[in-house]
């Protein structure tokens, strides 16, 4: 197959088979101090303004993300906005897994926050740096209460069970191992069961693949192993060094990427660990690069952060739309996001999510000319190869709610 590059460096370029994609412009992340073309006026709200959420929903191109949390404790679930008691944050697992997760019926939200967190400056080895707490929100009544203390990384199963990890001494301690154990509630929220058997490993619960719980073992140097739990004390290694790009909506498969080779994708059957497909996906810019925390909807998967063979950095930033069909993973489209725009130099793309109308929402981070790091969200239309910011620039990552498994549109 012959590939052609569509668009210039200043455009969001869409690469498809036969170069059929159109090219469009990308707006800068914020009008404030960024220069360039201003984003739609509907997104020119401050981060502390509740209108931000409305602005997202009423984005001029009609993109309506199905679920996510946002700054200043505002969360949107299935089109409704709620204010949480605390800003979701997870000091130990943010980015790896969502900090806020709704249930499948859309009635409840679980999120992680930290008590006593003051940052790490001034702490000595072994000193308590904070206590993770999972909170549960009844989205009908607004009741926001402690679900489990000393715990983080909630993952909700379709039958209502909640998996999480529990710090073995109940708190994070600075610069020492902080082992956890994997816990699972019953569907009625009653007795919790311990599913892991080791007491010297830090686990992070990733998500449910049907009846199977997927989790990371986090080892030295941030190296991870991905394991599948089938019940208390029953687990299987899914991948040595592989991280979870996405779990299929039916829970039967998991897409993994090798931590030390971000171009090598593997699709595994969760029930037995069998490899269904493995390999690279080529674009004219080099193979697709993937990272954990992406999205799988139907047979399509959206993957960030770009493409390139690793011979030069930064490579080309962008997102890929993949398709898993007939036992094979293929590339449907690769959309380039300019590495430099509006005076900012892009340094990462993370947590892409399909929106209900086929768009893609993702988090971007960039450096300004003084080296300050900025974050914002953008929504892209893969077909038009156009992206627009939907949040103002800010200086922290946002918590992102998981939408993979419930984007069917349950209305609370």
């Amino acid at each position, binding site marked *: 197959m012959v590939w052609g590059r569509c668009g210039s460096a200043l455009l969001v370029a869409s690469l498809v088979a036969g170069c059929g994609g159109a090219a469009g412009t990308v707006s800068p992340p914020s009008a404030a101090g960024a220069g360039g073309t201003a984003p739609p006026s509907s997104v020119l709200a401050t981060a502390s303004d509740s209108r931000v959420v409305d602005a997202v929903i009423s984005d001029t191109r009609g993109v309506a993300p199905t679920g996510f949390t946002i700054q200043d404790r505002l969360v949107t679930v299935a089109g409704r906005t709620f204010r949480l008691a605390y800003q979701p944050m997870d000091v130990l697992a943010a980015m*790896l897994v969502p900090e806020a997760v709704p249930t499948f019926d859309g009635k409840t939200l679980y999120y992680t926050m930290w008590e006593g967190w003051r940052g790490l400056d001034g702490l000595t080895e072994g000193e308590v740096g904070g206590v993770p707490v999972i909170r549960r929100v009844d989205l009908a009544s607004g009741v926001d209460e402690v679900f489990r203390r000393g715990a983080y990384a909630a993952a909700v199963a379709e039958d209502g069970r909640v998996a999480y990890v529990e710090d073995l001494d109940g708190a994070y301690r600075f610069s020492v191992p902080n082992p956890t154990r994997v816990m699972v509630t019953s569907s009625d929220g009653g007795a919790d069961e311990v599913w892991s058997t080791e007491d010297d490993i830090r686990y992070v619960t990733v998500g449910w693949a049907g009846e199977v719980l997927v989790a990371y073992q*986090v080892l*030295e*140097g941030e190296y991870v192993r991905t394991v599948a739990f089938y019940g208390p004390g029953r687990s299987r290694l899914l991948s040595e060094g592989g991280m979870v790009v996405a779990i299929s909506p039916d829970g039967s498969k998991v897409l993994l990427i090798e931590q030390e080779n971000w171009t090598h994708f593997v699709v595994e059957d969760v029930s037995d660990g069998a490899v269904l497909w493995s390999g690279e996906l080529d674009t004219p810019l080099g193979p697709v690069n993937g*990272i954990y925390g992406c999205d799988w909807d139907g047979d399509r998967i959206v993957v960030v952060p770009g493409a390139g063979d690793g011979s030069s*950095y930064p490579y080309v930033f962008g997102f890929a739309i993949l398709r898993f069909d007939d036992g094979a993973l293929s590339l449907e489209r690769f959309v380039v996001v300019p590495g430099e725009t509006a005076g900012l130099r892009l340094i990462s793309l*993370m947590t892409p999510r399909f929106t209900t109308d086929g768009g893609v929402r993702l988090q971007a981070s960039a450096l300004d000319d003084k080296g300050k*790091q900025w974050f914002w969200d953008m929504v892209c239309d893969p077909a038009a190869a156009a992206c627009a910011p939907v949040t103002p620039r800010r200086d*922290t990552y946002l918590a992102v709610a998981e939408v993979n498994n419930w984007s069917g549109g349950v209305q609370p």
Partner: protein
Amino acid sequence: MTRHAWLRASLLVVAAVGILVLGVVPPALATPGASYGNYMWYKPGTQPTNGTLRAYTGYHQALSMTAGSGSGVNWNDPCVPNAGRLPDGWYNTYNGHHVDHKNDLIKGRVWGLSDKAKAGCQTRTALFIHTEETADNGQYCPTNDDDPYCWENANDYLSIGCVKISYPNNGFPNSIGSLHTWWHGGAGGLNSTYYSQILWVGASSPPL
């Protein structure tokens, strides 16, 4: 008084008299840490594989070597765990320096580093300065692919959450050996010992 105690007391008296009579003060033993001028500085490069690690003895540069931090994706974002480079700032040792580390993944000569979090981002944990070698400081290269305890090429500077320096294999310099010698020599570092502010990460030199 035992014979050893008598000898020790006599030596202390002689040393004290020498200091009083000659005005000679024995030199302070070197110890790692910014406040002693014995520290390392990792300056990120333009790529994850071309940073620079410098080592200082008494505030004077003693070593400079190529080092890497960050992986093949999102490498320059310290907020991205398991992929981005180390966040800027000072690092203490965590559980100290080891010669024959062999816990579960990283082996050989290592410097454990304290946890670090850029404001608003996830905490980076279980960080090290290390190379790719076996627990007994050798090489294990059983395949033609990237073996974890074998320094094959410049891609081995890539790191998912550490600072990596080269092993003298395939024409690469003995950076791990040089740093190890500096640590126990000019820096005065011991094994398995906690020290404060032994590594600075940043584009600019550390605030001293």
